[in-house]
């Protein structure tokens, strides 16, 4: 019962996350980096139960558009930044920056701008320059060329508002962190691969839910790995329970 106690949670481990590669590998569908808590749950198998409008919107995320807002030279650093914030260190990755780019290009903006902040598209560009400046201070050419430890160090200081000087003095660092990470989180947790990873039921119209109580689940909802321990050795094809 690995998830009944909370020993895997960072607050219970002195702020350190457990090693994600110790999690079960995904057997149905895709999760980012192919690990997760619901190895036999693939939300995309249920797409036929969603209303057409929702299905169109969600399935479009499997084929993100080409870059239209960012310039080619901005991409390596900003992709590395997104992947560091989301700890995406191997394929398969959710292409977070592509969704950020699409939102900026199509002007799907949050509806407010902090005083002292440039428009969101410009804020991202300044963050890119700032990250590269920090990387050069650590001896690398760009943020993308840094080791993971170096990237984590800079992003950690960004999150604690500890970046100073240069481009960081042209806008409130706290707001730059909020603006960029909000867009990253929206892109990542809008993607159905992330729903597989966390066991989210996904779109629920017109089907809805009947089993609302503690430890209850619909027959089609994903089961956490702990409940499937005995099944782990079985072939996926031998498990008839998780079809749409």
């Amino acid at each position, binding site marked *: 019962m690995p998830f009944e106690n909370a020993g895997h949670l960072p607050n219970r481990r002195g702020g350190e996350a457990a090693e994600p590669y110790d999690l079960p590998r995904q057997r149905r569908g895709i999760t980012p980096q192919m690990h997760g808590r619901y190895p036999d749950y693939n939300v995309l198998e249920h797409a036929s139960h969603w209303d057409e409008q929702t299905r169109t919107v969600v399935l479009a995320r499997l084929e993100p558009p080409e870059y239209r807002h960012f310039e080619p030279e901005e991409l390596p650093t900003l992709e590395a930044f997104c992947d560091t914030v989301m700890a995406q260190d191997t394929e398969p990755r959710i292409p977070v920056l592509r969704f950020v780019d699409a939102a900026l290009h199509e002007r799907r903006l949050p509806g407010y701008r902090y005083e002292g902040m440039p428009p969101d598209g410009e804020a991202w560009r300044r963050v890119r320059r700032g990250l590269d400046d920090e990387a050069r201070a650590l001896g690398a050419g760009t943020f993308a060329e840094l080791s993971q430890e170096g990237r984590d160090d800079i992003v950690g200081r960004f999150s604690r508002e500890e970046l100073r000087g240069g481009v960081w003095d042209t806008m409130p660092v706290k707001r730059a962190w909020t603006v960029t990470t909000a867009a990253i989180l929206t892109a990542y947790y809008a993607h159905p691969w992330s729903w597989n990873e*966390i066991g989210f*039921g996904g779109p629920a119209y*017109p089907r809805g839910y009947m089993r609302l109580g503690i430890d209850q689940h619909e027959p089609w909802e994903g089961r956490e790995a702990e409940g499937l321990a005995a099944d782990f050795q079985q072939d996926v094809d031998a498990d008839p329970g998780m079809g749409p």
Partner: protein
Amino acid sequence: MRAVRLVKGSVRPPDNDSAFLLDPHRRHVPGAARMRRYREDDAVDMVIVGAGAGGTVLAQRLARAGWRVVIIEAGPFWDPDRDWVSDEAGSHHIYWTQTRIIGGEDPVALGNNNSGRGVGGSMIHYAGYTPRFHPSDFRTRSLDGVGADWPISYEELRPHYERVERELPVAGEYWPWGDPHGYPHSPHPISGAAERAWEGALRYGIEMRVGPVAIANGQFGNRPHCIYRGFCLQGCKVNAKASPLVTHLPDALEHGVEVRADSMATRVETDGHGRATGVVYVHEGREHMQRADAVAISGYSIETPRLLLNSRSPAHPNGIGNGADQVGRYVMVQGAPQVAGRFPEAMRMYKAPPPEVSSEVFYETDASRGFARGFSIQTISPLPIGWAEHVIADGHWGRQLREYMRDYNHWSVLGALCELLPEPGNRVTLADEADENGTPLARFEYTQCENDRANIAFAKGVLHDIWEAAGAQDVLTIDRYAHLIGGCRMGTSPETSVVDGDHRCWEVPNLFVADGSALPTQGSANPALTIMALSSRLAERLASGRVSGSRSRDGSRMVGVG
């Protein structure tokens, strides 16, 4: 009422057939296809800016009384089947996402946090909580020495609370707080996440109640039963959750109201005699003007002040209604910290509506807490993107963030709504930038006062203690705000308010403000029901002539004379 209670099922609301005018098999508003149209130079009885909670109820009531009403709405005329999705990120278009500038020491996030756009307004994306204000909310200055006294009392609003609760309809347990009352629909079944919050509250020593939510519990007219899919904040594709689109607009259209969607009001026009003559708006890039005998602004706490401030003329050099520099002041938000608790079992908080159980034990002032006024407690239940914002706000990114996100199904989230006090410096002004129509953008400055900070800190402590009592294994906290109130408040003096107790602008007798911006205080209650009840009261007074309404010689209504 006693005899009515013997009738099985909910009581059909009087004078509002909206639920029965909808299509049982489709979610669009059928009446839109045969909507009445008025000519722009035909001075209608009232033009209303904004088809949200305030504007739509006002229109429906007045239309029932024979008034000819046009609503100018910036956003689209929604068809829930066609326009809305069962998805968080895909619902971006239902929020007001045109740029606004936010500042002050504690800037308030707008957009999906509190600002709707389109027919139905912010009630399209509100969670569905519909508590009443307490009687004390109308007299905080007298009772507690803070905030402001309203020019009207709770008792004047009570019949309209009761009427709107039947129209939505509101489901919930008997309500023991404030003015005790029951609800027309019985409480919904609750989710595991809410059950755990309930248990924790009991162990901590306070009681919660199921509801009150404006979600039909059972079929209501042609509105189906809730299917507990959990996407209330993304627009209800079921038509089970109440919004003006389904609760008042169908009846309004049936009685001759025209809604002009995708039309952004840019200015209130006045004549040389100090009266409003109509509203200028932009539709598909072209400027139009709808003439009217009376004008009501129902654009909520940011856009209503913005429109008034942008309505400059020689007679109103600082904006219409702003002679005493009161427009845009006293904008309030509720402090809305959320604390999440972690449990061994699966909570799966994405199931069932996020609004489930709530408590108003801490609503009133308790001197021993060291601050004035109080807060309410409600279940929140964010979907994944909302949960991610909660986790990162607690300081976790990278692998830590992913771990807490993978743990999503083990968490339940409680939120507080803290009554933050009205301050003159918390205000909407005009920014130096303009939108695509050349209209200056709104700038909203917000800073908490000491009482506000003490209230929020205390509320967070209570939420932590509830989860501790429930046996939570870990907790995560986020500070945020909810709702907007004020900006054109009603009062008893033109020096300290924008409108009088009849929502009438002190300076312009046929100009009204009928939305959340007129409220002088906000309590710890979600504002939708009170905004609707106030419009219901205003409409009753206008239609009965108690607010200087009388027919002129040519048969149109003259409002505000004398």
